[in-house]
């Protein structure tokens, strides 16, 4: 059983997953904020390795990626950062990045170095399972969970493939679109999750567009976990020692726990 599986075995609550772009606004900031996110109630943190052409991301994460790259953040730095974070953070850490930086680093070496530093999983939004055999085989061998995504457009056949092959959890994209805050989520989210649940007992976490405790509560009432990214990035812009971001995470935590107990 992987470290990520453990999160979902704790039946007392649903998972809160936060996303931050490594190196935004600085590497030091990432080192500082991740333990604070964990303390404020996050169960898993996704660490975004910045890429020059983030086609699945909306304006907020594009801007954060751009800024992180201006700061000189490389995949090597991201791996090194996890090694450092591991001195104080025990929750699962998952890399989120596009395929090219991994490919260029060398798939085998990337998986090996990541695991060795203490990374538990990896999400690659531009690599569907159809193209994922190589990374899947290698990451599995190294003990890194390769998390695949499902979308509202996924057909029954694709849902079956993804639930069979995704490890750790299944990342369900809540909207057809890019990352970023939205006023409303897919109206048939409950139906979507129920449909997937019929085919798997693996946990389903929902992300893209979730930016308020109300939305988090709504999602948590149907799914196993809630993923929040862009809103966290936005709140990190406040120069308040991450007070507002931690406050926001605590609110999310309460909202999600409320959904669970009700």
């Amino acid at each position, binding site marked *: 059983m992987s470290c990520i599986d453990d999160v979902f075995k704790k039946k007392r609550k649903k998972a809160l997953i936060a996303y931050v772009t490594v190196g935004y606004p600085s590497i030091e900031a990432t080192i500082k904020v991740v333990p604070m996110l964990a303390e404020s109630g996050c169960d898993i943190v996704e660490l975004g390795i910045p*890429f*020059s*052409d*983030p*086609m*699945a991301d*909306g304006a907020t994460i*594009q801007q954060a990626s*751009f800024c992180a*790259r201006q700061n000189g953040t*490389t*995949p*090597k730095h991201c791996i090194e950062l996890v090694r450092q974070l591991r001195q104080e953070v025990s929750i699962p850490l998952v890399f989120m990045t*596009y*395929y*090219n*930086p*991994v*490919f*260029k*680093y060398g798939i085998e070496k990337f998986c090996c170095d990541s695991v060795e530093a203490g990374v538990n999983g990896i999400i690659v*939004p*531009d*690599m*569907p399972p*159809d*193209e994922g055999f190589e990374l899947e085989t290698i990451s599995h061998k190294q003990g890194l969970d390769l998390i*695949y*995504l*499902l*979308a*509202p*457009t*996924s*057909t029954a056949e*694709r849902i079956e493939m*993804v639930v069979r092959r995704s490890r750790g959890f299944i990342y369900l*994209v809540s*909207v*057809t*679109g*890019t990352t970023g805050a939205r006023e409303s989520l897919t109206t048939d989210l409950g139906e979507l999750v129920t449909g997937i649940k019929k085919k798997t007992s693996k946990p389903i976490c929902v992300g893209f567009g979730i930016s308020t405790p109300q939305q988090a509560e709504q999602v948590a009432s149907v799914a196993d976990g809630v993923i929040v990214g862009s809103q966290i990035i936005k709140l990190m812009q406040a120069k308040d020692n991450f007070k507002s971001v931690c406050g926001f995470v605590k609110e999310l935590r309460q909202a999600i726990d409320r959904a669970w107990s009700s």
Partner: protein
Amino acid sequence: MQPDKKGYFGEYGGRFVPETLIPVLDELEANYRVLKNDAAFWGEFESLSRDYSGRPTPLYDAEGMTGHCGGARIFLKREDLAHTGAHKINNALGQGLLARKMGKRRIIAETGAGQHGVATAAVCAKLGLKCIVYMGEEDVRRQALNVFRMKLMGAEVKTVCGGSRTLKDAINEAIRDWVTNARDSHYLLGSVVGPSPYPRMVRDFQSIIGKEARKQIKDKTGRLPDYIVACVGGGSNAIGIYHPFLKDEEIRLIGVEAAGKGLKSGMHAATLVAGSTGILHGTRSYLLQDKEGQIKQTHSISAGLDYPGVGPEHSFLKDSGRVKYVAVDDGQALEGFRLLCRTEGIMPAMESAHAIYYAAKLAGSLNRDEIIVINLSGRGDKDIDIVAEAMGAGL
């Protein structure tokens, strides 16, 4: 050649896109597979190619340029005379008809030089489809004429301010729109790049260039050419003319990329000449990238070649040795531009001017009984401001 069932040409191609788009690509591929064998569809494509686009475009015996170069006989495939001024109309028309068949009423496109945007805007106006064109801020500036042409034909032009503000970023933004509106929108991608089935589908629509050229050169000279030269950005005009000649091993095919301010300067767009394998915009192909796998900024005097990727079939053709890829810099391309203006009274697009320059040098080194066909992929009116600026002439 045909790609394998996962859309690979050898090790290049595939579908590296978010999950949301995979079912959309499946739908596109299924529809295209049916239409590929639908005589009525191709009948309409051919009829509109003739009456709307003005095909077949002439194969012109360029005696003036031939005389100037003093060697091989040069023919120009006159895609510059196609409706909207470039070969881009072939693909826009084909995909426009396909989108209409699929019931998609909203068309998304990206454009660099603006030629694909103009072609798409025209086809959408003709077929009654809504048209949104993404264009980098830098390209909007240097191709103002085309921006206005698109607007006149009813397209909405969206300026992209992210990244390098050129074609690459316009594609990113078009993909983001597509992911968001996949159910009712068709992404009318303008080159042989992107996820499968685009590289093959765009090639099929563009190979009309080579089919015509093959017949025309035989009619005019009684034989096939010795060389075919075309410029390569994403590579659609080049694939279009090469394709019907790929099996004729004795014909040398040459692709001319943009060396910008010189290969050593790092400011260029010579993906096949100076790049390495990677994944961008949904496909595995040669790329211009740094050692961390970040996509590099490119530079070319011609907006249409200013792209860090290239079609996967070109990558395959490079590795197999079937096509030779070379690079021509900004200054040389300008020389090619002026050469064709003066020897033939034809103003080539700056993209095509790269091929003109290389072919002119090549012709001079060959015998008079050899034949070169150059794909003159577009006309140069859109580039007048850039040429004037580069020559230091005020307009």
